[in-house]
Protein backbone atom coordinates (compact mmCIF):
# COMPACT_ATOMS: atom_id res chain seq x y z
CA UNK A 1 0.00 0.00 0.00
CA UNK A 2 1.17 3.53 -0.66
CA UNK A 3 0.29 6.76 1.06
CA UNK A 4 -3.13 7.90 -0.09
CA UNK A 5 -5.13 10.79 1.37
CA UNK A 6 -8.37 9.52 -0.21
CA UNK A 7 -8.24 6.15 1.49
CA UNK A 8 -6.28 7.59 4.40
CA UNK A 9 -3.53 5.05 4.29
CA UNK A 10 -0.14 6.23 5.49
CA UNK A 11 3.33 4.81 5.96
CA UNK A 12 4.11 7.20 8.75
CA UNK A 13 2.09 9.49 11.01
CA UNK A 14 4.10 12.45 9.73
CA UNK A 15 2.51 12.04 6.29
CA UNK A 16 -0.84 12.85 7.86
CA UNK A 17 0.12 16.41 8.67
CA UNK A 18 -2.09 18.87 6.85
CA UNK A 19 -1.43 20.67 3.59
CA UNK A 20 -3.41 21.76 0.55
CA UNK A 21 -3.89 18.14 -0.58
CA UNK A 22 -4.88 17.02 2.90
CA UNK A 23 -6.50 20.01 4.58
CA UNK A 24 -7.87 20.09 8.08
CA UNK A 25 -11.67 20.06 7.83
CA UNK A 26 -13.86 23.14 7.71
CA UNK A 27 -17.33 22.84 9.21
CA UNK A 28 -20.15 25.33 8.86
CA UNK A 29 -21.73 26.83 11.97
CA UNK A 30 -25.44 26.08 11.73
CA UNK A 31 -27.31 26.93 14.90
CA UNK A 32 -25.23 29.68 16.49
CA UNK A 33 -26.14 32.87 14.66
CA UNK A 34 -26.25 31.36 11.19
CA UNK A 35 -27.14 33.85 8.48
CA UNK A 36 -27.13 33.45 4.73
CA UNK A 37 -25.36 36.78 4.32
CA UNK A 38 -22.36 35.80 6.39
CA UNK A 39 -21.89 32.03 6.75
CA UNK A 40 -19.20 31.07 9.22
CA UNK A 41 -16.93 28.07 8.83
CA UNK A 42 -14.75 26.66 11.59
CA UNK A 43 -11.41 25.17 10.56
CA UNK A 44 -10.98 22.31 12.99
CA UNK A 45 -7.30 22.21 13.82
CA UNK A 46 -7.81 19.55 16.46
CA UNK A 47 -8.29 17.13 13.57
CA UNK A 48 -4.54 17.35 12.92
CA UNK A 49 -2.70 14.18 13.99
CA UNK A 50 -1.37 15.55 17.29
CA UNK A 51 -4.44 17.57 18.10
CA UNK A 52 -3.80 21.22 17.42
CA UNK A 53 -2.87 23.96 14.98
CA UNK A 54 0.66 23.71 16.35
CA UNK A 55 1.32 20.53 14.35
CA UNK A 56 1.98 22.80 11.38
CA UNK A 57 4.61 25.04 12.98
CA UNK A 58 6.23 22.10 14.77
CA UNK A 59 6.77 20.18 11.54
CA UNK A 60 7.97 23.27 9.70
CA UNK A 61 10.53 24.12 12.36
CA UNK A 62 11.68 20.52 12.75
CA UNK A 63 12.13 19.98 9.01
CA UNK A 64 14.15 23.19 8.81
CA UNK A 65 16.45 22.02 11.64
CA UNK A 66 16.86 18.66 9.89
CA UNK A 67 17.81 20.36 6.61
CA UNK A 68 20.33 22.54 8.38
CA UNK A 69 21.89 19.49 10.02
CA UNK A 70 21.12 20.78 13.50
CA UNK A 71 19.66 17.49 14.72
CA UNK A 72 22.59 15.18 14.11
CA UNK A 73 24.51 13.17 16.71
CA UNK A 74 21.56 12.48 18.98
CA UNK A 75 20.78 16.11 19.54
CA UNK A 76 17.22 16.80 20.62
CA UNK A 77 14.88 19.74 20.94
CA UNK A 78 14.09 22.06 23.81
CA UNK A 79 11.15 24.42 23.45
CA UNK A 80 9.11 26.79 25.63
CA UNK A 81 5.44 25.98 25.17
CA UNK A 82 2.03 26.42 26.69
CA UNK A 83 1.55 22.77 25.77
CA UNK A 84 0.42 22.30 22.19
CA UNK A 85 3.72 22.98 20.43
CA UNK A 86 5.41 20.74 22.96
CA UNK A 87 2.90 17.95 22.30
CA UNK A 88 3.35 18.29 18.53
CA UNK A 89 7.15 18.31 18.82
CA UNK A 90 7.18 15.42 21.28
CA UNK A 91 4.99 13.30 19.01
CA UNK A 92 7.04 14.18 15.94
CA UNK A 93 10.16 13.47 17.97
CA UNK A 94 8.71 10.09 18.92
CA UNK A 95 8.00 9.28 15.27
CA UNK A 96 11.35 10.53 13.96
CA UNK A 97 13.62 9.62 16.85
CA UNK A 98 14.48 12.90 18.53
CA UNK A 99 14.33 13.51 22.28
CA UNK A 100 12.25 16.51 23.32
CA UNK A 101 12.37 18.67 26.41
CA UNK A 102 9.37 20.97 26.96
CA UNK A 103 9.40 23.99 29.26
CA UNK A 104 5.90 24.96 30.38
CA UNK A 105 4.51 27.57 32.78
CA UNK A 106 2.93 26.27 35.96
CA UNK A 107 -0.56 27.48 34.96
CA UNK A 108 -0.72 25.18 31.91
CA UNK A 109 -3.61 22.70 32.27
CA UNK A 110 -2.62 19.49 34.05
CA UNK A 111 -3.92 17.47 31.11
CA UNK A 112 -1.26 18.98 28.84
CA UNK A 113 1.53 18.31 31.32
CA UNK A 114 0.32 14.72 31.64
CA UNK A 115 0.21 14.25 27.86
CA UNK A 116 3.76 15.60 27.52
CA UNK A 117 4.94 13.13 30.17
CA UNK A 118 3.07 10.26 28.50
CA UNK A 119 4.78 11.19 25.23
CA UNK A 120 8.12 10.82 26.97
CA UNK A 121 9.09 14.48 26.88
CA UNK A 122 11.34 15.74 29.61
CA UNK A 123 9.29 18.41 31.33
CA UNK A 124 10.31 21.57 33.17
CA UNK A 125 7.49 23.35 34.94
CA UNK A 126 8.36 26.98 35.62
CA UNK A 127 6.74 28.50 38.68
CA UNK A 128 5.28 31.92 38.07
CA UNK A 129 7.74 34.33 39.64
CA UNK A 130 6.58 35.77 42.95
CA UNK A 131 5.92 39.04 41.19
CA UNK A 132 5.51 38.40 37.47
CA UNK A 133 6.66 41.04 35.07
CA UNK A 134 3.81 42.80 33.31
CA UNK A 135 3.81 42.22 29.59
CA UNK A 136 6.30 39.42 29.80
CA UNK A 137 4.27 36.34 30.58
CA UNK A 138 6.13 33.40 29.15
CA UNK A 139 9.47 35.12 29.72
CA UNK A 140 10.43 32.55 32.33
CA UNK A 141 9.83 29.57 30.08
CA UNK A 142 11.58 31.15 27.10
CA UNK A 143 14.61 31.98 29.21
CA UNK A 144 14.80 28.53 30.79
CA UNK A 145 14.60 26.84 27.39
CA UNK A 146 17.32 29.17 26.07
CA UNK A 147 19.40 28.32 29.13
CA UNK A 148 19.23 24.59 28.40
CA UNK A 149 20.24 25.20 24.79
CA UNK A 150 23.12 27.47 25.83
CA UNK A 151 24.41 25.28 28.67
CA UNK A 152 24.09 21.99 26.73
CA UNK A 153 24.46 22.84 23.03
CA UNK A 154 25.45 19.26 22.25
CA UNK A 155 22.15 17.96 23.66
CA UNK A 156 19.61 20.57 22.63
CA UNK A 157 18.66 22.93 19.89
CA UNK A 158 15.78 25.34 20.46
CA UNK A 159 13.36 25.87 17.54
CA UNK A 160 11.95 28.97 19.33
CA UNK A 161 8.45 29.31 17.94
CA UNK A 162 8.32 32.94 19.12
CA UNK A 163 11.02 34.05 16.71
CA UNK A 164 11.33 31.30 14.11
CA UNK A 165 10.18 32.43 10.65
CA UNK A 166 9.40 28.76 9.86
CA UNK A 167 6.42 29.14 12.20
CA UNK A 168 4.99 31.82 9.87
CA UNK A 169 6.06 29.96 6.71
CA UNK A 170 4.23 26.80 7.83
CA UNK A 171 0.94 28.71 7.68
CA UNK A 172 1.87 30.49 4.48
CA UNK A 173 2.50 27.08 2.89
CA UNK A 174 -0.41 25.12 4.35
CA UNK A 175 -3.18 26.95 6.27
CA UNK A 176 -3.52 29.78 3.75
CA UNK A 177 -3.65 27.62 0.61
CA UNK A 178 -6.01 25.16 2.30
CA UNK A 179 -8.51 27.89 3.16
CA UNK A 180 -8.25 29.44 -0.30
CA UNK A 181 -9.00 26.11 -1.92
CA UNK A 182 -11.67 25.05 0.57
CA UNK A 183 -13.61 28.30 0.14
CA UNK A 184 -12.98 28.41 -3.61
CA UNK A 185 -11.47 31.84 -3.10
CA UNK A 186 -14.67 33.18 -1.57
CA UNK A 187 -13.31 33.93 1.90
CA UNK A 188 -13.90 37.56 2.92
CA UNK A 189 -13.05 37.42 6.66
CA UNK A 190 -10.52 35.40 8.64
CA UNK A 191 -10.93 35.19 12.43
CA UNK A 192 -7.88 34.05 14.33
CA UNK A 193 -6.43 34.22 17.84
CA UNK A 194 -2.96 35.44 18.79
CA UNK A 195 -0.25 33.42 20.53
CA UNK A 196 3.12 33.29 18.82
CA UNK A 197 1.35 35.02 15.88
CA UNK A 198 2.65 32.42 13.41
CA UNK A 199 -0.89 31.49 12.36
CA UNK A 200 -2.15 35.02 11.80
CA UNK A 201 0.99 36.26 10.04
CA UNK A 202 1.44 33.29 7.68
CA UNK A 203 -2.22 32.75 6.83
CA UNK A 204 -2.91 36.45 6.38
CA UNK A 205 0.10 36.96 4.13
CA UNK A 206 -1.06 34.16 1.85
CA UNK A 207 -4.73 35.14 1.72
CA UNK A 208 -4.07 38.84 1.23
CA UNK A 209 -1.65 37.90 -1.54
CA UNK A 210 -4.52 36.19 -3.32
CA UNK A 211 -7.11 38.83 -2.48
CA UNK A 212 -6.04 42.01 -0.67
CA UNK A 213 -9.67 42.65 0.29
CA UNK A 214 -9.73 39.67 2.70
CA UNK A 215 -10.17 41.09 6.17
CA UNK A 216 -8.10 39.54 8.93
CA UNK A 217 -9.55 39.96 12.40
CA UNK A 218 -7.46 39.00 15.40
CA UNK A 219 -9.51 38.07 18.44
CA UNK A 220 -7.80 38.59 21.76
CA UNK A 221 -8.81 37.92 25.34
CA UNK A 222 -9.10 40.84 27.75
CA UNK A 223 -6.09 41.59 29.92
CA UNK A 224 -5.56 39.43 32.97
CA UNK A 225 -6.89 36.37 31.12
CA UNK A 226 -5.74 32.82 31.77
CA UNK A 227 -6.56 31.13 28.46
CA UNK A 228 -3.62 28.81 27.74
CA UNK A 229 -1.64 29.64 24.63
CA UNK A 230 -3.25 32.99 23.90
CA UNK A 231 -1.87 36.47 24.25
CA UNK A 232 -3.35 39.89 24.59
CA UNK A 233 -1.41 42.39 22.47
CA UNK A 234 -0.02 43.83 25.71
CA UNK A 235 1.80 40.50 26.14
CA UNK A 236 3.19 40.22 22.63
CA UNK A 237 6.67 41.55 23.37
CA UNK A 238 7.92 37.98 23.48
CA UNK A 239 7.02 37.33 19.85
CA UNK A 240 8.86 38.81 16.91
CA UNK A 241 6.34 37.27 14.51
CA UNK A 242 3.54 39.76 15.24
CA UNK A 243 3.05 41.98 12.19
CA UNK A 244 0.30 44.53 12.74
CA UNK A 245 0.19 45.39 9.03
CA UNK A 246 -1.23 41.92 8.29
CA UNK A 247 -4.16 42.43 10.66
CA UNK A 248 -7.13 44.66 9.84
CA UNK A 249 -8.82 44.70 13.22
CA UNK A 250 -8.06 43.50 16.72
CA UNK A 251 -11.19 42.67 18.69
CA UNK A 252 -10.98 42.26 22.44
CA UNK A 253 -13.36 39.84 24.11
CA UNK A 254 -13.88 39.46 27.87
CA UNK A 255 -11.98 36.24 28.43
CA UNK A 256 -14.70 34.77 30.64
CA UNK A 257 -16.85 34.44 27.51
CA UNK A 258 -14.50 31.86 25.99
CA UNK A 259 -15.84 29.07 28.19
CA UNK A 260 -19.45 30.12 27.64
CA UNK A 261 -18.94 29.81 23.88
CA UNK A 262 -17.25 26.43 24.37
CA UNK A 263 -20.48 25.20 25.93
CA UNK A 264 -22.47 26.69 23.04
CA UNK A 265 -20.22 24.98 20.49
CA UNK A 266 -20.48 21.65 22.28
CA UNK A 267 -24.20 21.75 23.03
CA UNK A 268 -25.57 23.41 19.92
CA UNK A 269 -23.11 22.49 17.19
CA UNK A 270 -21.54 19.25 18.39
CA UNK A 271 -18.16 20.88 18.00
CA UNK A 272 -15.87 19.76 20.79
CA UNK A 273 -13.81 22.93 20.85
CA UNK A 274 -11.32 24.36 23.33
CA UNK A 275 -11.44 27.80 24.97
CA UNK A 276 -9.42 29.64 22.32
CA UNK A 277 -11.95 28.44 19.72
CA UNK A 278 -14.75 29.77 21.93
CA UNK A 279 -13.06 33.16 21.95
CA UNK A 280 -12.62 33.19 18.16
CA UNK A 281 -16.28 32.26 17.69
CA UNK A 282 -17.36 35.21 19.85
CA UNK A 283 -15.25 37.54 17.71
CA UNK A 284 -16.85 36.22 14.53
CA UNK A 285 -20.38 36.44 15.94
CA UNK A 286 -19.77 40.09 16.83
CA UNK A 287 -18.64 40.84 13.28
CA UNK A 288 -21.81 39.13 12.06
CA UNK A 289 -23.93 41.28 14.39
CA UNK A 290 -22.11 44.35 13.12
CA UNK A 291 -23.31 43.56 9.61
CA UNK A 292 -20.36 41.77 8.02
CA UNK A 293 -21.15 40.21 4.64
CA UNK A 294 -19.40 37.48 2.70
CA UNK A 295 -17.84 34.30 4.06
CA UNK A 296 -16.06 34.01 7.37
CA UNK A 297 -13.48 31.40 8.32
CA UNK A 298 -12.54 30.87 11.96
CA UNK A 299 -9.40 29.01 12.92
CA UNK A 300 -10.24 26.78 15.88
CA UNK A 301 -6.80 26.02 17.34
CA UNK A 302 -7.60 22.92 19.37
CA UNK A 303 -10.26 20.77 20.96
CA UNK A 304 -11.98 20.27 24.28
CA UNK A 305 -10.28 17.32 25.91
CA UNK A 306 -7.20 19.07 27.29
CA UNK A 307 -9.32 21.68 29.05
CA UNK A 308 -11.75 19.69 31.13
CA UNK A 309 -10.24 21.00 34.38
CA UNK A 310 -10.06 24.52 32.99
CA UNK A 311 -13.72 24.49 32.02
CA UNK A 312 -14.67 23.10 35.42
CA UNK A 313 -12.83 26.00 37.03
CA UNK A 314 -14.55 28.64 34.94
CA UNK A 315 -18.12 27.52 34.37
CA UNK A 316 -20.59 27.88 37.19
CA UNK A 317 -22.37 24.65 37.89
CA UNK A 318 -19.80 22.52 36.07
CA UNK A 319 -17.63 21.82 39.06
CA UNK A 320 -14.91 19.23 39.25
CA UNK A 321 -17.10 17.33 41.72
CA UNK A 322 -19.90 17.18 39.18
CA UNK A 323 -17.52 16.07 36.45
CA UNK A 324 -15.33 13.49 38.09
Amino acid at each position, binding site marked *: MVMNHDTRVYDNIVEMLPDEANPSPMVRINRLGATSGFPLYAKLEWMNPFGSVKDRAALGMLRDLQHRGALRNGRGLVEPTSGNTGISLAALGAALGYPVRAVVPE*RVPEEKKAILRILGAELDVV*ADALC*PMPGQTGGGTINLAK*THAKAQPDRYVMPNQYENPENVLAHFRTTGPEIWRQTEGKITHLFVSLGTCGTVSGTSRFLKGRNPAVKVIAVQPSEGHDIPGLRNTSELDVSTLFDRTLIDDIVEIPYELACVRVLDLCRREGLLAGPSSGLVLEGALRAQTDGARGLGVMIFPDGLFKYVGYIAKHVKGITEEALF
Partner: protein
Amino acid sequence: MPYAHPEVLVETDWVKENIGKPGIRLVEVDVDLQAYDAGHIPGAVGFNWQKDLQDQLTRDIISRAAFEKLLGGAGISPRDTVVLYGDNNNWFAAYGFWLFKIYGHENVKLMNGGRQKWLNEQDKTFTKDKPYHSPVLYTAKPPNEGLRARLSEVIGASGERNPNLVDVRSNDEYTGKIIAPPGMSETAQRAGHIPGAVSVPWSTAVDKDGRFKSAEELAEIYLKKGGIDSKKPVIAYCRIGERSSHTWFVLKYLLGIENAKNYDGSWTEYGNLVAVPIEK
Protein backbone atom coordinates in the same frame (compact mmCIF):
# COMPACT_ATOMS: atom_id res chain seq x y z
CA MET B 1 25.85 63.20 33.86
CA PRO B 2 27.44 60.03 35.28
CA TYR B 3 25.84 57.69 37.83
CA ALA B 4 26.53 58.76 41.40
CA HIS B 5 28.34 55.48 42.10
CA PRO B 6 29.31 53.91 38.77
CA GLU B 7 31.60 51.45 40.55
CA VAL B 8 28.63 49.32 41.66
CA LEU B 9 27.75 48.31 38.09
CA VAL B 10 29.65 46.07 35.71
CA GLU B 11 28.77 45.08 32.18
CA THR B 12 28.49 41.53 30.85
CA ASP B 13 31.68 42.00 28.81
CA TRP B 14 33.59 42.95 31.97
CA VAL B 15 32.32 39.80 33.67
CA LYS B 16 33.42 37.67 30.70
CA GLU B 17 36.91 39.19 30.91
CA ASN B 18 37.20 38.69 34.65
CA ILE B 19 35.74 35.21 35.18
CA GLY B 20 37.99 33.17 37.44
CA LYS B 21 40.33 36.00 38.43
CA PRO B 22 41.43 35.86 42.07
CA GLY B 23 39.36 38.00 44.38
CA ILE B 24 36.41 38.21 41.99
CA ARG B 25 33.39 36.03 42.70
CA LEU B 26 30.13 35.59 40.83
CA VAL B 27 26.82 34.89 42.54
CA GLU B 28 23.55 34.22 40.74
CA VAL B 29 20.54 35.17 42.89
CA ASP B 30 17.15 33.92 41.71
CA VAL B 31 13.76 33.35 43.24
CA ASP B 32 14.68 29.64 43.25
CA LEU B 33 17.49 27.60 41.72
CA GLN B 34 15.65 26.15 38.71
CA ALA B 35 17.33 28.48 36.21
CA TYR B 36 20.74 28.24 37.92
CA ASP B 37 20.60 24.45 37.85
CA ALA B 38 19.81 24.48 34.13
CA GLY B 39 22.80 26.70 33.38
CA HIS B 40 24.79 29.60 34.80
CA ILE B 41 27.87 31.70 34.18
CA PRO B 42 30.96 29.52 34.65
CA GLY B 43 32.23 29.81 38.22
CA ALA B 44 29.05 31.34 39.64
CA VAL B 45 27.47 29.97 42.80
CA GLY B 46 23.69 30.10 43.14
CA PHE B 47 21.74 31.67 46.00
CA ASN B 48 18.06 30.85 46.42
CA TRP B 49 16.19 34.04 47.35
CA GLN B 50 13.40 32.19 49.14
CA LYS B 51 15.54 29.71 51.07
CA ASP B 52 19.02 31.21 51.39
CA LEU B 53 18.24 34.89 51.91
CA GLN B 54 15.07 34.66 54.01
CA ASP B 55 14.86 33.40 57.57
CA GLN B 56 12.67 30.32 57.40
CA LEU B 57 10.97 30.79 60.78
CA THR B 58 10.63 34.53 61.22
CA ARG B 59 9.58 36.77 58.35
CA ASP B 60 12.92 38.53 58.18
CA ILE B 61 16.22 38.73 56.35
CA ILE B 62 18.69 36.04 57.38
CA SER B 63 20.62 36.68 60.57
CA ARG B 64 24.21 37.87 60.61
CA ALA B 65 25.32 34.35 61.57
CA ALA B 66 23.37 32.82 58.69
CA PHE B 67 24.84 35.37 56.27
CA GLU B 68 28.34 34.51 57.49
CA LYS B 69 27.61 30.81 57.04
CA LEU B 70 26.17 31.34 53.54
CA LEU B 71 29.10 33.38 52.25
CA GLY B 72 31.79 31.44 54.09
CA GLY B 73 30.30 28.19 52.79
CA ALA B 74 30.50 29.55 49.25
CA GLY B 75 34.16 30.39 49.80
CA ILE B 76 33.57 34.15 49.64
CA SER B 77 35.79 36.28 51.86
CA PRO B 78 34.96 39.83 53.02
CA ARG B 79 37.76 41.13 50.79
CA ASP B 80 36.36 39.57 47.61
CA THR B 81 34.66 41.63 44.94
CA VAL B 82 31.27 39.97 44.50
CA VAL B 83 29.33 40.42 41.27
CA LEU B 84 25.63 39.60 41.60
CA TYR B 85 23.30 38.83 38.74
CA GLY B 86 19.96 37.09 38.39
CA ASP B 87 16.72 36.56 36.57
CA ASN B 88 13.67 38.85 36.52
CA ASN B 89 15.77 41.85 35.56
CA ASN B 90 18.06 41.47 38.58
CA TRP B 91 15.24 41.93 41.13
CA PHE B 92 16.54 39.22 43.39
CA ALA B 93 20.15 40.15 42.72
CA ALA B 94 19.32 43.71 43.79
CA TYR B 95 17.78 42.32 46.96
CA GLY B 96 21.01 40.36 47.44
CA PHE B 97 22.99 43.57 46.90
CA TRP B 98 20.89 45.26 49.60
CA LEU B 99 21.51 42.35 51.97
CA PHE B 100 25.27 42.35 51.26
CA LYS B 101 25.33 46.07 52.07
CA ILE B 102 23.30 45.56 55.25
CA TYR B 103 25.98 43.16 56.46
CA GLY B 104 28.73 45.49 55.34
CA HIS B 105 30.28 43.67 52.38
CA GLU B 106 32.55 46.30 50.89
CA ASN B 107 32.88 45.40 47.22
CA VAL B 108 29.63 44.21 45.73
CA LYS B 109 28.37 44.98 42.24
CA LEU B 110 25.44 44.21 39.98
CA MET B 111 25.92 42.87 36.46
CA ASN B 112 23.97 45.32 34.31
CA GLY B 113 21.15 43.61 32.40
CA GLY B 114 21.27 40.50 34.57
CA ARG B 115 21.01 36.91 33.52
CA GLN B 116 18.83 37.60 30.51
CA LYS B 117 21.35 39.91 28.85
CA TRP B 118 24.11 37.33 29.23
CA LEU B 119 21.74 34.63 27.95
CA ASN B 120 21.02 36.55 24.76
CA GLU B 121 24.64 37.38 23.92
CA GLN B 122 26.20 34.97 21.46
CA ASP B 123 29.74 35.24 22.80
CA LYS B 124 28.75 34.31 26.37
CA THR B 125 28.51 30.75 27.66
CA PHE B 126 26.59 28.90 30.34
CA THR B 127 27.54 25.73 32.15
CA LYS B 128 25.72 23.19 34.27
CA ASP B 129 28.89 22.50 36.27
CA LYS B 130 28.65 23.69 39.84
CA PRO B 131 31.92 25.22 41.04
CA TYR B 132 33.65 24.10 44.20
CA HIS B 133 35.13 26.83 46.36
CA SER B 134 36.82 25.92 49.63
CA PRO B 135 34.82 27.29 52.55
CA VAL B 136 36.33 30.21 54.42
CA LEU B 137 35.56 31.94 57.68
CA TYR B 138 33.46 35.00 56.85
CA THR B 139 32.97 37.70 59.43
CA ALA B 140 30.14 40.12 58.67
CA LYS B 141 29.65 43.57 60.15
CA PRO B 142 26.70 44.36 62.41
CA PRO B 143 23.59 45.03 60.30
CA ASN B 144 23.31 48.53 58.89
CA GLU B 145 19.71 49.24 59.81
CA GLY B 146 19.97 52.56 58.01
CA LEU B 147 19.28 50.80 54.71
CA ARG B 148 16.06 49.20 55.89
CA ALA B 149 12.75 50.94 56.55
CA ARG B 150 10.60 49.53 59.34
CA LEU B 151 6.85 49.83 59.68
CA SER B 152 6.84 52.59 62.32
CA GLU B 153 9.08 54.72 60.13
CA VAL B 154 6.85 54.12 57.11
CA ILE B 155 3.71 55.08 59.02
CA GLY B 156 5.47 58.23 60.24
CA ALA B 157 6.65 59.04 56.75
CA SER B 158 3.16 58.53 55.42
CA GLY B 159 1.74 61.03 57.89
CA GLU B 160 4.36 63.70 57.37
CA ARG B 161 4.95 63.00 53.66
CA ASN B 162 8.65 63.07 54.53
CA PRO B 163 10.67 60.98 53.74
CA ASN B 164 9.30 60.44 50.26
CA LEU B 165 7.58 57.13 49.70
CA VAL B 166 7.91 55.47 46.29
CA ASP B 167 5.52 52.70 45.29
CA VAL B 168 7.28 50.67 42.58
CA ARG B 169 4.46 48.21 41.86
CA SER B 170 2.32 48.25 38.72
CA ASN B 171 -0.24 50.99 38.26
CA ASP B 172 -3.12 48.58 38.85
CA GLU B 173 -1.69 47.58 42.22
CA TYR B 174 -1.07 51.22 43.17
CA THR B 175 -4.58 52.34 42.32
CA GLY B 176 -6.14 49.38 44.10
CA LYS B 177 -7.63 47.77 41.00
CA ILE B 178 -5.86 44.54 41.99
CA ILE B 179 -4.24 43.35 45.23
CA ALA B 180 -1.46 41.38 43.58
CA PRO B 181 -0.26 40.85 39.99
CA PRO B 182 -2.39 38.45 37.91
CA GLY B 183 -1.84 34.86 38.93
CA MET B 184 -0.45 35.72 42.35
CA SER B 185 -2.22 34.77 45.52
CA GLU B 186 -3.79 37.76 47.22
CA THR B 187 -1.47 38.16 50.15
CA ALA B 188 -2.99 41.39 51.45
CA GLN B 189 -6.42 42.23 52.80
CA ARG B 190 -6.64 45.58 51.06
CA ALA B 191 -5.74 46.92 47.62
CA GLY B 192 -4.26 50.38 47.23
CA HIS B 193 -1.15 52.22 48.37
CA ILE B 194 0.44 53.85 51.38
CA PRO B 195 -1.01 57.36 51.77
CA GLY B 196 1.29 59.93 50.23
CA ALA B 197 3.29 57.46 48.15
CA VAL B 198 4.09 58.35 44.54
CA SER B 199 3.87 55.70 41.83
CA VAL B 200 6.99 54.96 39.79
CA PRO B 201 6.84 51.34 38.57
CA TRP B 202 10.26 49.62 38.83
CA SER B 203 10.31 48.81 35.11
CA THR B 204 10.60 52.49 34.17
CA ALA B 205 14.23 52.33 35.37
CA VAL B 206 15.41 49.89 32.72
CA ASP B 207 15.75 49.71 28.96
CA LYS B 208 14.42 46.85 26.86
CA ASP B 209 17.67 44.90 27.30
CA GLY B 210 17.31 45.11 31.09
CA ARG B 211 20.18 47.59 31.58
CA PHE B 212 19.60 50.64 33.71
CA LYS B 213 18.68 53.84 31.90
CA SER B 214 21.13 56.74 31.86
CA ALA B 215 21.50 59.03 34.87
CA GLU B 216 19.75 61.83 32.96
CA GLU B 217 16.79 59.62 32.14
CA LEU B 218 16.58 58.32 35.71
CA ALA B 219 16.69 61.87 37.11
CA GLU B 220 13.89 62.82 34.76
CA ILE B 221 11.77 59.83 35.80
CA TYR B 222 12.26 59.91 39.57
CA LEU B 223 13.10 63.51 40.43
CA LYS B 224 11.29 65.56 37.82
CA LYS B 225 8.25 63.50 36.84
CA GLY B 226 8.03 61.42 40.04
CA GLY B 227 8.46 64.50 42.20
CA ILE B 228 10.92 62.81 44.57
CA ASP B 229 12.94 65.36 46.55
CA SER B 230 16.53 64.09 46.44
CA LYS B 231 17.42 66.15 49.50
CA LYS B 232 14.93 64.29 51.67
CA PRO B 233 15.10 60.69 52.84
CA VAL B 234 13.26 58.29 50.51
CA ILE B 235 11.69 54.87 51.07
CA ALA B 236 10.89 52.39 48.26
CA TYR B 237 8.36 49.60 48.64
CA CYS B 238 6.58 46.99 46.51
CA ARG B 239 4.75 43.80 47.47
CA ILE B 240 7.45 41.66 49.07
CA GLY B 241 10.51 43.89 48.91
CA GLU B 242 12.42 42.61 45.89
CA ARG B 243 11.17 44.91 43.12
CA SER B 244 11.71 47.77 45.56
CA SER B 245 15.33 46.79 46.18
CA HIS B 246 15.85 47.29 42.44
CA THR B 247 14.46 50.84 42.75
CA TRP B 248 16.36 51.38 46.03
CA PHE B 249 19.56 50.56 44.10
CA VAL B 250 18.65 53.17 41.49
CA LEU B 251 17.84 55.86 44.04
CA LYS B 252 20.85 55.32 46.27
CA TYR B 253 23.64 54.31 43.91
CA LEU B 254 22.70 55.64 40.49
CA LEU B 255 21.00 58.89 41.54
CA GLY B 256 23.01 59.29 44.73
CA ILE B 257 20.19 59.85 47.24
CA GLU B 258 22.21 59.15 50.37
CA ASN B 259 19.31 58.39 52.69
CA ALA B 260 17.41 55.81 50.65
CA LYS B 261 15.83 52.81 52.31
CA ASN B 262 14.10 49.65 51.18
CA TYR B 263 10.86 48.77 53.00
CA ASP B 264 11.00 44.98 52.73
CA GLY B 265 7.73 44.53 54.64
CA SER B 266 6.10 46.30 51.70
CA TRP B 267 2.46 45.84 50.77
CA THR B 268 2.21 42.36 52.25
CA GLU B 269 2.83 44.01 55.63
CA TYR B 270 1.17 47.41 55.21
CA GLY B 271 -1.88 46.16 53.31
CA ASN B 272 -2.76 43.82 56.17
CA LEU B 273 -2.60 46.29 59.06
CA VAL B 274 -5.65 46.78 61.26
CA ALA B 275 -6.89 50.34 61.77
CA VAL B 276 -4.31 51.89 59.44
CA PRO B 277 -5.79 53.75 56.48
CA ILE B 278 -4.63 53.28 52.91
CA GLU B 279 -5.24 55.26 49.76
CA LYS B 280 -6.64 54.08 46.45
